[in-house]
């Protein structure tokens, strides 16, 4: 009898404490690849998002502790929709972090229908700017990145012949379209484009085709383990042309890969040694925690979480509920945000406008800036 009573009391206390934790926490969601070949990105994105949550909670910016609920997308659209469904319909979060072009496109419909804000900090397909007003991007998109790289390669380095190796998915297609549009006005040409399946791992044949194209620049539009395999096999198989890519090259493994040294890539421009307090705190704390320099992806997801905190803080000050609709209205009413990289503003379509920098892989972990171009 006594045991039963004690069990009932313990159960009641457990329920009460669980309820009090739930009442205090403010939850947002994240649909990241946590398993599969692109899981390395999930770890990178999480490190930025978690650092932001830590800073927000340390500063007491919100009425409760900010907690991020992670769901695994495996970087696949279908898995992404399942994860988004759980976050929206079961957890009821008003704000979800998203990544990868295919996944972001897939979840955008649900975001729009449920009035849940989805924020992308990793996918760069240009059409991500047109997924409705509940879909935001805290990363410049491929049209800005490809344009900046092409200008630098053609105008500053004098390269004219480009070959593209691209993954056969929405991201790869969008980069192909951008290169076809961008190069001719600059007096350069896309001599050949080679698409590869997302699951492909053998590229010695692709390297042979690239060599026969005789290009000045090989633009690699892939991500995850595959882009490292492409770079390695291009170099191992005698391709000596300049290798170039977009912000996917800012992953640590590629930055220290022998075969990738000297490759060019683009990201939004961030001055890591800036004295701006938000940037400085982010860089110092990241370095202290991970003993290495942060990359733009980490800054993007830090910024994505910080945008939520700034909006939620403003809504709480007005005694408004933290809903997707209110977050959207507040974003439209806010001119600028103090984020890592400085003061930035959203365009009408929900995409951040930021200058683009061209970097060279130099083994330092974050690349050496060789040029900064304003976003078009």
């Amino acid at each position, binding site marked *: 009898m006594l045991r039963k009573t004690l069990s009932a009391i313990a159960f009641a206390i457990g329920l009460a404490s669980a309820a009090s934790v739930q009442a205090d926490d403010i939850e947002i969601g994240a649909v990241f690849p946590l*398993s*599969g*070949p692109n*899981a*390395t990105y999930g*770890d990178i994105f999480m490190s930025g998002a978690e650092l932001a949550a830590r800073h927000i909670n340390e500063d007491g910016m919100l009425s409760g502790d900010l907690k991020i609920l992670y769901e695994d997308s495996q970087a696949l659209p279908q898995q992404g929709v399942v994860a988004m469904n759980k976050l929206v319909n079961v957890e009821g979060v008003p704000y979800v972090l998203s990544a990868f072009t295919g996944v972001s496109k897939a979840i955008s419909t649900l975001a729009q229908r449920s009035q849940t804000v989805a924020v992308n900090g990793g996918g760069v397909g240009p059409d991500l700017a047109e997924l409705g007003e509940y879909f935001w991007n805290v990363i410049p998109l491929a049209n800005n990145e490809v344009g900046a790289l092409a200008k630098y390669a053609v105008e500053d380095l004098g390269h004219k012949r480009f070959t593209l*190796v691209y993954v*056969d998915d929405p991201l790869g297609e969008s980069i192909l379209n951008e290169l076809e549009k961008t190069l001719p006005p600059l007096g350069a040409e896309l001599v050949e484009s*080679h*698409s*590869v*399946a997302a*699951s*492909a*791992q*053998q*590229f*010695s*044949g*692709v390297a*042979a*085709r690239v*060599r*026969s194209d005789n290009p000045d620049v090989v633009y690699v539009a892939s991500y*995850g*383990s595959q882009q*490292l*395999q492409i770079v*390695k*096999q291009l170099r*191992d*198989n*005698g391709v000596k042309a300049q290798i170039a890519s977009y912000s996917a090259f800012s*992953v640590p*493994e590629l930055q220290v*890969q*022998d075969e990738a040294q000297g490759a060019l890539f683009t990201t939004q421009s961030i001055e890591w040694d800036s004295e701006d307090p938000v940037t400085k705190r982010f860089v110092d704390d990241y370095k202290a925690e991970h003993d290495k320099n942060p990359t733009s992806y980490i800054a993007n997801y830090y910024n994505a979480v910080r945008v939520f905190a700034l909006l939620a803080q403003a809504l709480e000050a007005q005694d408004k509920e933290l809903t997707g609709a209110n977050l959207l209205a507040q974003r439209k009413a806010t001119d600028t945000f103090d984020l890592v990289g400085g003061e930035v503003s959203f365009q009408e379509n929900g995409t951040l406008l930021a200058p683009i920098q061209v970097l060279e892989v130099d083994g330092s972990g974050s690349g050496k800036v060789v040029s900064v171009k304003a976003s078009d």
Partner: protein
Amino acid sequence: MLFLQLLANGLQVGAIYALTAAGFSLIFGSTKIFHFAHGATFAIAAYLFHFALAGLGLHWTFAVAVSATSAVVFGVLLDRFMYAPIQRHEGSFFTVFVASFGIGIVVQNLLGSVFGRGFMSVATPLSNSVEVMPGLYLSPLNGLAIVSAIICFVALHFFLTHTFVGKGLRALSENPELVRTFGLSPRRLSTYAFALGSLLVVPGAIFTAAGTGINPAVGHHVMLISLAATIVGGIGSLRGAACAGLLIGVAENLAMWKLGTQWSEAITFAILFFFIIFKPSGFFGRATVS
């Protein structure tokens, strides 16, 4: 020259495919177990080779030994502690398949947790190609992969035709009941089949770690190719699986001579469909009547 280059690449890739496919075919042909975790064996062998060489700093010969031992131990343990109990309880073919599939997923995640989920490769000058004639680049790995495959197949042929266990394995694939009549243990032979089949993935795993690089999901592709090669070669035929592996590797590369690069992977399935429709028994398989 592009044709020659693609052919050379295809022979290297095909040699690796042939070995892994032969391993799968040996296990499937002898034991009738659909060993989907064969891809996991490949991944374990590749990762432990990388770990022994780059992580522990061992000489490459010891790294090869670590890789081979891990592959054999994994295969044998699976046979003894997973497949054998399922078969004892008269589990269906599908039960075995699901269990094996599950092990593949578990191994993939374990490798990701232990070694990281990113890309890894063995840094070796052997993977660097040199221009042997205008437009034709070959790396020492190209030649090593082909020579290793030939040596392995000669040794395998000798083992299966000249040793008592080898003859027993061949008999097991033909008639397990007859094997029992002759006083041999099908269970023990099954263990030998797993040990030998798992050992055959080791050269491919090592060359992949050095050539294309590895990630925890590397086993999926291997499994896909092994399965296709087993069907194309004729179920139960080692020679067929080896030839089909070589054919798929060469076809994947030669497809890029005239077709777009995106056809490279699709060609495997085109070959598979061709055989399923026009020659269901495969290269060397025997036609059966159900």
